């Protein structure tokens, strides 16, 4: 749910990074946090957990400049990827305006990716939202693993598995080192702001 504050001239949008456990959602946020200047980023909120898994969510607020005199403020959220935390994922999706689906290229995670995307579709439907109508970007993460002997999926195979139905833009990425992280963020921000602006600001 976008919030448009006509008094302060601000638009607030919520973007959620979704994907199976250990696909790199929090890593994306950490890279963005470390790469942005203090003026453009807020405090990153991570709820401490044992180990490196997200238990509840991570939150990173960003300022993305002005459009038509409105300050664009984006809040990036991640969800816990592990299958058992479905209720938490559904909670974090409340009021979402845009989605990034982070796909893991490991061959052993092929089914997990497909299940996670289906879980996203189902959880959005419970909030009355249709994934096909929402701003969506796919990120094919961990591309550096493809040069190692570990069995991985090609981008074509991942597209086949995940993107046939949605035809969303996809980006190859290595979230630990940076390539593809800002390309993904730029595209989803553009689409989300457009989606919100079309609905409210330019449609009058």
């Amino acid at each position: 749910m976008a919030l448009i504050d006509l008094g302060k001239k601000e638009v607030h949008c919520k973007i959620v990074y979704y994907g199976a456990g250990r696909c790199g959602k929090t890593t994306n946020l950490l890279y963005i946090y470390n790469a942005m200047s203090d003026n453009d980023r807020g405090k990153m909120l991570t709820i401490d957990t044992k180990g490196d898994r997200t238990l509840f969510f991570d939150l990173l607020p960003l300022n993305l400049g002005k459009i038509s005199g409105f300050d664009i403020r984006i809040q990036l959220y991640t969800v816990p990827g592990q299958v058992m935390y479905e209720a938490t994922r559904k909670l974090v999706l409340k009021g979402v305006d845009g989605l990034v689906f982070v796909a893991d290229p490991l061959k052993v995670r092929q089914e997990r990716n497909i299940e996670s995307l289906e879980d996203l579709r189902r959880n959005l439907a419970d909030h009355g939202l249709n994934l096909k109508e929402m701003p969506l970007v796919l990120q094919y993460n961990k591309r550096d693993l493809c040069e190692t002997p570990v069995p991985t999926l090609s981008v074509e195979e991942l597209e086949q598995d995940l993107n046939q139905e949605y035809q969303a833009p996809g980006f190859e990425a290595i979230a630990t080192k940076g390539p593809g992280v800002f390309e993904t963020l730029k595209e989803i921000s553009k689409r989300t702001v457009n989606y919100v602006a079309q609905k409210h600001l330019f449609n009058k």
Partner: protein
Amino acid sequence: MPDMILTAKSVEDVKSIINEKLISENVQTVMVIDGAGNILAHCGQDADGLDAISLAALTAANFGATSQIAKLIGENDFSLLYHKGEKANIHFARLGGEMILVSIFGDDVSLGLVRVRVEELADDINQIFEG
């Protein structure tokens, strides 16, 4: 959950009744937030002293989590939550619909007063924001 559009007047109206009913009674900070964790109005202690964005996001998530606990014991939802600290206390109340009112106050303010005032405010805030 539909998108929400705030006008300068609606925010000012809400702030003025919050100032009158709570801030004037020494409540340090009052925020109205929505179920997605957006801040609709913020009164009292300024943003420098408080990470309002994180507080709003965690409050929305906390309410979501406790409403699941409510369901486990056969309740539909808990309409208010209260946490007591050594110096600061925090009171959360659902204002009907998706909005939550967060009040932070010290030991010099009684919980009973906060509860009564929040109850008085709920309908008015609902009416201003949701019409």
